[in-house]
């Protein structure tokens, strides 16, 4: 199989996935896309084995590394800007604060995952594993300190930014807790 034929297979699989997802959305059945994804992965994997040409070489891997670094930076910057905008607008809709917090945690999570994968790969590829473990032991107290600080900040944020005056659903009725700014919600309390 040539590279062009393989690209054709990939396009066909993408069309199959898009069709199955649209069917799932319109009919509310989510089994079809799951089967389609598994079938697609198997088809692509089998097709890849038939390709005799080189699909990706060292230049592609180098570019992929650069693209990953750029993506991480762009994602973090967009999430940070989104966090500040949504947090500034939280008075207009209290839900914005939750979304802003989600953005912040997503960014932190992605950066943490990136660091962990980096150190895992460095550990895996290094012949000098003892020194890397020694390095890790050196940084361990700082890591524990950072995790404790993150936990304290998370708890403090919840305490500081969660509104205390709100409507609480009790025995099927909305009961005011404190003096909430919003009007009594209609329905949704059972």
């Amino acid at each position, binding site marked *: 199989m040539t590279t062009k034929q393989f690209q054709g297979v990939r396009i066909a699989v993408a069309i199959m996935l898009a069709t199955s997802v649209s069917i799932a959305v319109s009919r509310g059945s989510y089994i079809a896309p799951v089967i389609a994804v598994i079938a697609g992965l198997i088809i692509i994997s089998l097709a890849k084995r038939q390709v005799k*040409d*080189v*699909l*990706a*070489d*060292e*230049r*592609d891997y180098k570019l992929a590394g650069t693209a990953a670094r750029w993506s991480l930076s762009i994602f973090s910057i967009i999430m940070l800007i989104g966090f500040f905008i949504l947090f500034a607008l939280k008075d207009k809709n209290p839900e914005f604060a939750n979304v802003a917090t989600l953005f912040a945690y997503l960014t932190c999570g992605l950066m943490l995952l990136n660091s962990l994968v980096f150190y895992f790969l460095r550990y895996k590829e290094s012949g000098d594993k003892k020194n890397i473990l020694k390095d890790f032991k050196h940084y361990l107290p700082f890591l524990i300190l950072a995790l404790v600080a993150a936990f304290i900040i998370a708890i403090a944020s919840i305490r500081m930014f969660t509104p205390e005056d709100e409507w609480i659903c009790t025995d099927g009725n909305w009961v005011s807790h404190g003096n909430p700014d919003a009007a009594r919600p209609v329905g949704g309390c059972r």
Partner: protein
Amino acid sequence: MVIPTPLDQSVAAVNLILMTNKIKELRANHGLTQEELARKVGVRRETILFLEAGKYNPSLKLAHDVAVALETKIDELFQF
């Protein structure tokens, strides 16, 4: 704060320099197309194109493979 040593600075400078090479000339002498050379060294044709244009610094392994395919030595094939 980590202060870069002169060695660090020279390494950084070298990474920014693209090497010139004789790949196109030697490939023509061997009567090989870019596609054929790419297949011999296990890369895509575009990589050979970028190598010949001096827009990509290859890994030591690829440089070695290209030198072997063109029956020459690495230091004769690439120049800083």
